[in-house]
């Protein structure tokens, strides 16, 4: 499970973290426990790619046992 860009300042540069969670909401909670502030940071303005599919407003989306998750900035557009 990878995070990149800004959130690295919370994990001290670590970009790959294993977490047990069944939904995005649980995942963010777990991350906050590991790295205080990270979960809420990611919860506010971040999109999540779960196994390649990007969710702009993730919250209750289900996460599989070995799902690959990426945190991305939300995309706007012209």
């Amino acid at each position, binding site marked *: 499970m*990878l995070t*990149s*860009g*800004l959130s*690295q*300042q919370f994990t001290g*540069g670590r970009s790959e973290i294993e977490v047990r969670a069944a939904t995005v909401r649980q995942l963010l909670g777990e991350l906050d426990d590991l790295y205080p502030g990270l979960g809420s940071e990611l919860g*506010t*303005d971040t999109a999540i*790619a779960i*196994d*390649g*599919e*990007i*969710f*702009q*407003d993730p919250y209750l989306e289900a996460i599989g046992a070995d799902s*690959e998750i*990426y945190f*991305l*900035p*939300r*995309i*706007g*557009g*012209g």
Partner: protein
Amino acid sequence: MTTNGNGSTQGNGLKWVGKRTIRPDGVDKVTGRAQFGADFTLPGMIVGQVLRSPHAHANIRSIKTDKAEALPGVKAVVTSADFPELPSTFEAAGEVMLNFRDMSCNVLARKKVLYHGHAVAAVAATSVAVADQALALIEVDYEILPHVIDVIEAMAPDAPLLHDDMFTIGVEPTPDKPSNIAKRVEYGLGDIEAGFKAADVVVEREFTTKAVHQGYIEPHAAVATASEDGQCHIWCSTQGQFVVRAYVSKLLGLEISQLRVTPSEIGGGFGGKTVVYLEPLALALSLKCHRPVKMVMSREEVFQASGPTSGAHVWVKVGATKDGRITAAEAVLKYQAGAVQGSPIMPGCMCAFAPYDLENVKVVGFDVVSNRPKVAAYRAPGAPISEFGVECVIDEVANKIGMDAIAFREKNAAREGTHAAYGPRFGPVGYTETLRVAKEHPHYHAPLGPNQGRGVASGFWFNIGGDSSAALHINEDGTATVISGCPDIGGSRASLVIMAAEILGIDVDRVRPIIADTSSIGYSFLTGGSRVTFATGMAVIQAAEDVVRQLRERAAMIWEIDVEAVVWENGEARPSGSNAGEFDPLSLGDIAAKAGKTGGPINGHASLNAQGAGPAFGTHICDVEVDKETGRVTVLRYTAVQDAGKAIHPSYVEGQIQGGAVQGIGWALNEEYIYDEKGRLENAGFLDYRIPVASDMPMIDAVIVEVPNPKHPFGVRGVGEVPLCPPMAAVANAVAAATGLRMADLPISPPKLLEAIDNGL
């Protein structure tokens, strides 16, 4: 123009999807009847004008408005003192997070003017002449400060500082000195050092691009009215009535329910009408005088004070093996944000290498403020800039290893399952199909004459989904009305009614669309990011399916059979089979006529947050001829291939591709913001900000490839953004082929190219 169907299963058996129908709003727009922003009037309406900064950077010691207020005919004057001071925090507004202190400061300068043309005060008066006199009576005491325009100069430690509270985000530890660098971002995979070691050929180059304006022909315009009980209404030209409502209510401290926003027809936006400029000013003025206030920007104001996209400095390094495999790719991007933070640096970084399957990649980006207007979105915000540099270097690498430019791209192309440079794996994508179609296109094999050259470049954009609402009303006679909340900027009404007619199985002419104001339809995010046909289309489809379900229920009631025994086909309810019973089919009209007797009106609704937007790729081919005595570049032939997923209305898909390509050619050859030594914009008009004219261009062959997006019922991806990504590199690569010169600084204007030719650069 041809359509390369690509085994799109969704393409089969469709009655309306893919047809070139007449757009529902067309007649109004060819007769002059359509009402755009500046065409709207209200009884008792007065006009507002804006006082703008003559300086690039200055402290505002004081603003005296008493003389202006005393002028007969002046009804209201506003300055930043009339706007609540907002904290510098990112807050949700509709779908996006924004720093409202920055937005407020851009709408009206507070304490400081940050660019030439920055709004300082606004006046409402009984006529433009009186308003202009009043502006002249406003006394602003400026303390002029040193300014900085260029992005590299703005990053220098001793550069004039725009914001003394700006400490670069994204570097550890956070700097203790403020700077003009708002943010540093980084993306990467693998080990680039090892990757470059494994390369046989490495190409490294610096590029610069200039700030360019979206160049919509309709200037910003708004009419606002506020009643004595605080109820407010804005009519304006915008890409999103709901974001105008969110922004203006936040900027003026209103409750959202107090404000209703009605979008006019919109005369172009390309991302530039996703923010607010006049709307909050007009409403603030109306809140003071309770008269409807109309404000329209002049073309000069549009250039001075509305958002161009970033100018940038781009460094790209790519390494590859002799047999054409990219081993490492690296880029550093420095984007101008304008006067306040918020350049499209993140998408710029994410898109830079997105078309390629790379094991080792690193992109670092900087968001940099300088004394220019705040940038606004412009088609695929940020992507065309980084992709220009990357696609030029890709071309050079291919040349160095003696490989065909398309073959080299094919060998490294992102496919389904490829890890995008920004992380996640791609689902089904059509990049390789666009390359194949480009390679097989006659254009790619046509002979070239002396001083002529051919260039190829590709482009990528994510496309987005997001919040959309739609309603579908069945009228008593069986006709239908589709109601959506997204302004129609380039034919989306046509695609929405096509999708509704397809699901209902009725004639497309029996479905009429309207675009509702913020009080008449559920929240819908703006028209942008190539999302309307995808996301709002999804909402329309779901609303239509909701209606079909109700129609089957009504038919079941009329026939007194189980609803499961009723099917909906070609606009009629039929018994599912002989055992369901023998009934004559009921048309939509038959059922609509009995609606009152079977439970009341039949209406469908859908509100959703569309996920699963399909990433899209395009590949362009450009032929140019260079006049080596004058440095003029003439575009002789242009072909643009793009994966649309599914073209609901092919003509408007082609139109998006052709328009984007020509905007990109303008960006490549002539368009730029020119500043004098005092930091004043020198070319704030269509005379010297040179957008392409009809006689500059050849026909643009738009070729649609269809690799369906599995997440959309018809396979739609979205088309509006991608076409602006490839052209700058396609033109630069063609110029390189014609002259042997690598022009790395845009625009490739005649003086620049002639100098390079004469110095054999």
